[in-house]
Structures are given as C-alpha cells and as structure tokens.
C-alpha cells in the first residue's frame, strides 16, 4: 500500500495514465481510502484544466489585423474547466 507522501510524485502520471498499470492501480487503491490524496489529485486535474483554459484567447490585439482577419468577440479564457 502506498503512503500519502508518495502520491504527489505519482499524481501526474496517474491523471494522464502515463505510469505503469500496476502503479496506477496502486494509486487508485490508495485514493479509495484517502480523502486528502483524493483532494490533491483532483486539484491537480483541475490545475491542468486551468492551465489549458488560461492560454485561450491570449492573442495580441494587432495580430488579427496583421494577418488580415477580424478578431473574434471574446475576452478571457474561451471555456471553463469541467470537473
């Protein structure tokens, strides 16, 4: 059984399924039993979505003009992260 202190090192691999199946299973079993680690891993998932949305619509105002295009009617991130 994994200890809580090992979870942060494995969380990234776990959420993107990059780790081995065995390790992912161990993490999943630990998460079933530990609410703090669940909170940590869920937080990492949300952080990745926030990272994704934060770079949406980050376009300098004159770029569209330079490319001969009209700017879309938006301000800020295009979409909100889903949980």
């Amino acid at each position: 059984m994994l200890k809580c202190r090992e979870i942060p090192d494995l969380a990234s691999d776990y959420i993107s399924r990059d780790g081995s199946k065995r390790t992912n299973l161990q993490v999943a079993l630990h998460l079933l039993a530990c609410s703090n680690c669940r909170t940590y891993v869920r937080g990492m998932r949300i952080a990745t979505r926030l990272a994704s949305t934060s770079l949406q619509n980050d376009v300098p105002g004159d770029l569209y003009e330079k490319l001969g295009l009209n700017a879309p009617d938006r301000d800020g991130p295009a979409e909100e992260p889903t949980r």
Partner: protein
Amino acid sequence: MPNAAEERSGRLRRPPGWGGEACDRPARCASLACCLGGADDGAVNTVVLDGGRRSGHNTDWWGFAEGFRRGLPDADLSSAVQLGAGGAGVATAYAALSFGLQRLIGFDREGGRAQALARLLSPLFPNGQVAAGTDLAAEMKRTAGHIHTTPTGMVKYPGLPLDAELLSPEHCRYRLFPLETMLLKEARQRGCRKARRRRHGSVSGSRRLSAVCRSRTGCGTDARAFQGDGRLITDNGSLIKRAQGASSNRVTETFSPTVRRSALTQVSLAFLPRRPSNGSINEHEGQRAVVMGLSFWLSAAAFAIKFSIDEHFLGLLRKGDQKAMSELIARHHGALVRLAESVVKNRAVAEEVAQETWLAVMANLASFEGRSTLSTWIISILLNKAKNHAKRESRYAAFGDGDDPERDLGQTMRNRFDGSGHWSEAPVSFDGLTPERIVAGRHLWEHVRQMIDRLPPAQKAVLVMRDVEGADAAETCRLLELTPENQRTLLHRARTRIRNEIETQLTGGRSALTKA
C-alpha cells in the same frame, strides 16, 4: 495431453456456482477425455457442467462454417489442403465437409494427427474423401483451397506455415487463428481470395453461450450473433458489448459482465456463473451489460460528433473562412508563443515566430493532408521556425531539465508530510474553482497564465504540449526531442508547481507550502 485434461477436470470441480468453461489450444482435444458426452467432431472447445456431469461441445465448426458461407459463398469445393489437424483442425475439417467439400487432405507437423483426423471423419462423411497428405507441394498444386488452422503466424509463432511459393491466386483460403498473419499478408500480395475469421469468434461464442444456457435452464435459450460488429444479442434482449481487441476466441471477454477468466497458463478458462435457481435470466448482470453497451455507443457517438466537427472546421479553414481562422488562432496562439519562447528564450521573438507560423499555416492549409492532427502540424511548423531562429542567433539548446531547481520543489512537498508519511495539513480543495474566480484582485486565469510563464522552458514546453494542446506522451517526446522518462519528469514538475502555486494563491500564502 492428459495433464492438461486432469488439470482442467480438477478445475471444473472446484468453483461452485459456475456452469461451464471455454477451452482453447492446446486443451481442445484433451478436454474430450474429461467429458462424458462428446462433441460431434471429436474435439471440444466448450465444456458444460450440469448436475455433476460434464458434456463437451464444439462450437468452432459452426463459426467456421458460417464465416466460410458468408465470406466465400462461391468457393470451389472440389478439394482443399488443410494445415493443422489438432482441435481447431478437426472443427474446420468437419465444417468444410459439412458444407460440401469433396476432398480434404490434412497435414500436421505432429505425426499421426492427420491420419487420426482422416480416421475420425471418414466414417462421418462417406461421400467425401479425407486423407492424410504426404507431399504438401504436390497437393497445393492439385487442390483448389487451403485451410490454415495452425498457430503459425501468431505473435508467439512468427513465420509462414508453408513455402510462400506454394500459394497461388486460385486458392481460396480460410484461416482460423490470428487476425493478421504473415501467411495472410503473403496470400493477399499474391492475389489469393480468403475468408477471414472475423465472424468466427462471435458466432462460435454465441454457440458457447447457447450450450451453457440450454444446460442451465433447459429452456433452449439461444444466442444470436450479429456479424462483424462484435455485438451479441441474447434472446432475453440484453445487449452485450465485446471488448475491442479482445481475443475473439474467448467467450469470457465476449461476455465480460457475466463471465470471468482465470489466469491459467496456456489454457484460457472461462467459468460461466450459474443462473439463479428461479431460472430467470440474471437481471442484474443483464442491466450491467446494457449499461456497458449504452456507454460504448455513447462514447462512439461522442467520438463521431467530435470527428465530424473537426472535419467541418478543417473544411472551413481550407475554404479560407476568416472566422474559422480567427477561432483557430484564438485557440492556439497563446500556446504557440509559450512553445516558441521555450526555444528562443525571448518573448518578443517568440511572438514573431508565432506570427510567421500563422502566415505559413494560412499559406499551406490546402496542402495539409490530415496525416497528423491540425495542432500537431501547426506546432511542427512553429518548432522548426523557432529552432532555425535560435540557431541563427546561436541560442539553440535542446530541452533538458538542468534549469529546474527541483530540490526546492522536492523539499516543499516533503514538508507537507509528517514522519509517518501522512499529510500534516490537508491539501486545499479546488472543487468549484473556475478561471473567472477573482483571487488577489485578478481573475484566476491571469494568475495561472503568469505561473506558466514563470516555469522553466522545458517544463513550460511539456506542459503546453500535454495539457494545453492535448498531445500524447509519444507525440510530445517526438516534437520536443525528449526521452519518455524526461518528458514525464518535466510534466510532473510543471503540474506540481502550478498546483502548488494555485494553492498558495487561494490560501493567501498561508498554506503548508510556505513552510518550505
């Protein structure tokens, strides 16, 4: 193979509440010895337990016959060579003779099996001729068809079961084992017609279910197979999805909700659970099967819709739709600038590179063939331009992780746990957090954008590729020229850093992070 037979008979007695098992190579023939009732053709792939009595059934021949009937309806049935005379070979020979093959010549590497096949089947088919062959080359020239039932060509047994020169386009062939073998490839290149095993698994599997169902309820419940699409529908109406990529010969995977598979080496075992004593179809398992089926079709529909939208969007871009192009730029420009910056190490230059990239994309969209995703194609253009730029200014350096003060991050994380390895303070929950949340006077997304900008170049590039552009690990490694291990480490550090910084923002710097 008496040991296998004994092993199997021992296992059959063990699990209470199970109604039968599926047998696979090499135990098909061996299983016959365990059964009181034998299959018509002398080999067994399904053993049904009923009241302490075992009866053997062979559903392979039926699946094979159906596959042949549908795949090669006008095949020349005058004569055929069959390679392999084991359990599967008996089934295929029985099926071929059943639907009118006049002459079958068997060959098998194990001496005596082809003769045994002839002895077994000759009395059953007085109008046909079954014989053991001695000269494969000569028989291949004389006969019209070729049936392949050996495992040669499977991953464990690579190669061809016969000299490729012996294959001629006139041969119609049927193979029983893997989905793609060297033999099939060679035959296709030489223009041979062939019937594939595509339908064999589902048809044979349905027969297996049917055999067990009849035994369990005595009501003659049958199962029908829908060809080719992997779905099976039983008479009670429950839809059962077959796992994609599952071995078609394993009824366990075909009926995954209701059947389990043991991990016995060499022999694939499946124990079908007995039905409830009231004789009704197991409703709970039926419902689970329906849910699995529904979720499969919903996922497939979602994928189809996404694919359709992407195609539509690409079509608009190719037509020069300005709105679509603006949308594309809004989606990707921020990520492209960060990627370029991690190569050229300068924001203003990165903006220039991104702008050049968009010009190149607009000029070459018509030549985009769709062999990669659109975003991958755009990123490839950007990285090439960024690298050329950096090389021109002698600033180019391959991504590494030497620029990351990992020790600080590691220490920060270690401080969050007590001596027993548990959290000394619970992590802050991000539930309900949206990019629009105002934190410290600004939107959260503005903070996160700055956090990404502060990441070391390699971490930033990997984070952008994986989490912003949605590239997979292999694609990220290829485009950024990283090893898989390095990529994983960089992504882990970047994500941990972003998560920790968001947590610090939310707690106003009062969290355990500040203990570092």
